[in-house]
């Protein structure tokens, strides 16, 4: 009996091992192609960058005006400073819409005093249904004439952004997180793709990790790597995700995620698809997928672009606990979005999206951690029953680590040849070392967080309200 069981387990494990190896080869070939595409796209970007001076936009009457949407929930400590730095961004015509999402602290009072606000009527079409708007305020001071403060009943980040989209008047809307730090040329850089091609409906930018950098008056002055380990690991993760991932997706028009921390959208299309969905934790990804779908289903020629220039900085979690919560939420958002749009999977109608992007997100991003975890369990079992050939296992392990390291380092190299934002050689050295270390421990923890997300998702379907608010206090 026992023998039969062992034989059976053996069969399962062997099959799984084959599957894992197949999966592994597939994933790596895929990653490699993505990297190659990204590399080509970045080279083209850099070549154009040499003679296209986006600052020309600054002096043009034809620059499309931008409404910046800054939702805030209990931000009394930082709201004034972040609004001032938003108002100072280089762009010819821009308005800043600060949306107070029913803060329980004195965010609104501080804003009223600091910017000398008065209540006003501003005509707008409530095209997207939202929670009630309590009032719209503008400043009495001329230097703040581009500021509009909207006070509304609490409804979560997506709802706040929807109010912003309703009230805004300009053809482009820029959604940002309350804690994003934008470079002063950020808007100019992400508005450029809208000018290169009038079919562009959304543009995302690179989000960088600000931990360890010197920040003053809303400007990143000195770019440094954090002394702490956890933010530094994330620097490499972000490099991988943005430079060798999203850049490539942008190039083949299959970009599914534009970070909620910074994205520029065509207001018209956002309105047509009905704005952000407010009962999901992944509202930023969900909106992009819906915009893609809308254009594909209505045969509107369109494109979603990605700008590899570092334009937005954000404070990354410094403790495992908070990072875990963030990753858990991201993964739940991914799962939710993919479930909502599951009919796109392998659907020819959705072109690159249905045949490449969505399958990639389902099988590699979403299920990848599960497959990896089962692998770890299988190896453990195999060792326990003495069925794993130690040599083959070691070989496989070494190869997989080397691949992982190679991709991380390639991303670091890509960054260094293109934008080289870390001026100090020792920071670069440290990044290279971390690219190796990351594979032992950190990577496994992130797998665990993402697996746990499935459990939380299944359990938490009823508790959306609570989760929305957690989503709001991102990071």
């Amino acid at each position: 009996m026992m023998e039969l069981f062992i034989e059976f387990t053996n069969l399962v494990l062997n099959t799984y091992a084959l599957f894992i190896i197949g999966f592994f080869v597939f994933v790596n070939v895929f990653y490699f192609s993505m990297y190659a595409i990204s590399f080509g796209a970045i080279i083209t970007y850099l070549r154009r960058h040499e003679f296209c001076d986006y600052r020309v936009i600054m002096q043009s009457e034809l620059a499309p005006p931008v409404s910046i949407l800054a939702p805030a929930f209990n931000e009394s400590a930082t709201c004034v400073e972040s609004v001032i730095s938003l108002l100072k961004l280089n762009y010819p015509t821009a308005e800043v819409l600060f949306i107070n999402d029913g803060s329980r602290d004195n965010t609104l009072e501080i804003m009223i005093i600091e910017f000398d606000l008065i209540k006003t009527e501003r005509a707008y079409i409530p095209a997207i249904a939202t929670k009630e708007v309590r009032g719209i305020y503008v400043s009495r001071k001329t230097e703040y004439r581009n500021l509009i403060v909207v006070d509304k009943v609490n409804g979560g980040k997506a709802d706040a952004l929807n109010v912003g989209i309703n009230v805004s008047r300009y053809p482009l809307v820029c959604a940002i997180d309350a804690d994003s730090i934008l470079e002063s040329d950020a808007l100019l850089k992400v508005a450029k793709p809208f000018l290169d091609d009038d079919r562009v409906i959304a543009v995302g930018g690179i989000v960088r990790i600000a931990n360890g950098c010197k920040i003053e008056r809303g400007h990143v002055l000195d770019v440094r790597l954090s002394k702490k380990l956890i933010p530094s690991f994330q620097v490499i993760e972000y490099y991988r995700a943005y430079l060798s991932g999203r850049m490539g997706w942008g190039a083949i028009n299959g970009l599914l995620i534009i970070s909620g921390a910074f994205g520029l959208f065509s207001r018209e299309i956002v309105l047509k698809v009905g704005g952000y969905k407010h009962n999901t934790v992944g509202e930023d990804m969900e909106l992009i997928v819906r915009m893609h779908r809308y254009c594909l289903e209505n045969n509107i020629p369109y494109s979603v672009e990605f700008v590899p220039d570092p334009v937005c900085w954000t404070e990354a979690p410094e403790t495992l606990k908070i990072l875990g919560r963030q990753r858990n939420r991201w993964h739940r958002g991914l799962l939710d979005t993919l479930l909502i749009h599951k009919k796109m999977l392998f659907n020819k109608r959705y072109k690159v999206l249905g045949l490449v992007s969505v399958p990639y997100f389902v099988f590699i991003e979403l299920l990848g951690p599960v497959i990896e975890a089962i692998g770890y369990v299988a190896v453990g079992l195999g060792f326990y029953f003495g069925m794993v050939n130690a040599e083959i296992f070691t070989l496989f392990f070494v190869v997989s680590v080397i691949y992982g390291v190679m991709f991380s380092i390639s991303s670091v190299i890509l960054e260094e040849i293109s934008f080289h934002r870390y001026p100090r050689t020792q920071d670069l050295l440290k990044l290279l070392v971390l690219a190796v270390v990351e594979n032992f421990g950190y990577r496994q923890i992130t797998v665990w967080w993402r697996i746990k997300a499935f459990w939380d998702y299944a359990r938490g379907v009823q508790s959306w309200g609570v989760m929305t608010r957690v989503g709001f206090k991102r990071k």
Partner: protein
Amino acid sequence: MIALGSIALIVSKVRAGSIETKLDRNDTHTRALLNEYLFADIDTDDVNTHRAEFIRRLQPYLVQLENGLEIVNVSRNNPRKRSLKRVMLQLTTEVIGETLVRLTHAFHYFGFVDETNKSLQDDRWWIRAKGSKNAGLMMNESSLPYLEKCLDDQNDDVRTEAAQAMLDIAGVEILGPILMRLKEMTPWMQVRLSRSILAFGENSVPHLVTAMQSKYPKIQGFSVEMLGILGDIKATPTLLEYIDYSVRDVKHKSLIALGRIGDERSIPVIQRFLFSEDEQLRVDAAKAAGNLSTPSMAYDLYWMLVKDTLKVKFAAAEALARSGKLGIKSLTYAVTLDDAEVRMIAMQFLHEAGLPVDTSTIDEDNV
């Protein structure tokens, strides 16, 4: 392999650092010598009338600059020569007048113009694009024939840079020919060219009017938009003449332009478009009516506010708020209607116009 890659990266990083500081030092030195040339004291009263004489007098200072930089008979990739070209190209966008004349002459003297003209015929698009840009900065007429060929280039950027360079070199006179030659214009190209066109001011109006005869809607649209921004009433007759024959997007832009120009002659046409089948064009017409600030369309606008779609209602109300006393009166009356949506919109715009809603003053016969 990984290790090798990493080491190469580190080495290149360290080297890049030292090269950068060296470049900086090089450029500072170059600038110092170049400034000597740019501000060398020679009789400058007759730059425009006696250009040849002026340039003859510059000669010794150019030789002095060449000797100072030690770039006599060096290859074109000599770092000091690169530095000179870089600094000069950067400066040429910042200065005008006599200093610019000296700079352009120096471009020619050092062979940078020939080099650029050669790059305009290169196989690689980014070299052509960069060459076009440099040609514009160097302001040398010998580049014009090459640039003209680049107007038909496959690549958007090459076309944009070439058109811009031609305007920089030859001025407003070449605007018409460029626009008639182009088939396509990206918004980016429009942004680039718009700066020069607006700087030429009313001198560009006849060229833009000519360009409205282009076969290509993008070119028509751009010309119309520019005419609107320039706001010259000389453009009104042509805009009115063409509006019915153009595609929807150009109609849209024409209505906006007519609104911006604000010429009373366009009232009948705008009024006609208030009844267009196309929702967007009704919105545009309402906006244009608002810009004209005339009471003559208040009656039509009022009925649009009451009967049309939400988007048009909105535009009509905004226009009414700007259509003088009669407009305000119509809005005030609309506030008393049964339709909640109309009431809300009318109220919002009365508030926005800074007017208290006072329905007691309504004289119903007037509305």
